[in-house]
């Protein structure tokens, strides 16, 4: 899928974005257990790392990245999102990650300029 980059590919490429997100999550919290005192800094670092890698792609997009980290404790969590945009050029990608003590859900939205 990556060869489809002949200079100016201006479509939202889900696989590429998904890999960027996975690396950002692994880098920030991979191997850590839920810790109340660190979680703020983790969520911030996941979104910032993801956003900076996305902007490095150099495509004419505006990006929104959100990250939710939840302690594993039996509670139910449901999320939904609805978007009003241009279906042909805009897109989103959600990555769900978990380890023994927490869940992490990161969503990246890309809107063509």
């Amino acid at each position, binding site marked *: 899928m990556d060869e489809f980059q002949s200079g100016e590919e201006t479509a939202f490429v889900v696989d590429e974005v998904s890999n960027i997100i996975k690396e950002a999550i692994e880098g920030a919290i991979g191997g850590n257990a*839920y810790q*109340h005192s660190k*979680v*703020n800094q*983790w*969520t*911030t670092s*996941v*979104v*910032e790392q*993801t*956003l900076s890698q*996305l*902007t490095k792609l150099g495509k004419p997009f*505006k*990006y*929104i*990245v*959100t*990250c*939710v*980290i*939840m*302690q*594993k*404790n*039996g*509670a*139910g*969590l*449901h*999320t*939904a*999102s*609805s*978007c*009003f*945009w*241009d279906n042909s050029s*805009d897109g*989103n990608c959600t990555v769900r990650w978990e380890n023994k003590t927490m869940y992490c859900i990161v*969503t990246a*939205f890309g*809107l063509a*300029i």
Partner: protein
Amino acid sequence: MEEFQPHNDEMIFNAEEAHNIVKECIESILGKADYSHDKVNQWTATIVEQSLTHLVKLGKTYKYIVTCAVMQKSGAGLHTASSCFWDTTTDGTCTVRWENRTMNCIVNVFAVAIIL
């Protein structure tokens, strides 16, 4: 604040207006309900769709993204963060936090101006 409708080159996202719209949607859907595993899917879907419909009815040239998270109150910790790469003069976001006895609800609205 609502009559301030500038022309195309000077659009600002009116966060207060969006906040009110979303708050009303949440109230009407979750107002008197208790957390219910079977209904939660339908609630989150209805909240985002209704909020989006009302925002679009404002008739401004914006693209919108609305996200909603509903969580059962059970002592678990939940943290969310978001980061945006956009035009800070025209784009904006608004977050509404709501809760009742049995659940927490967090709705985020992101508005991105369309450049014509």
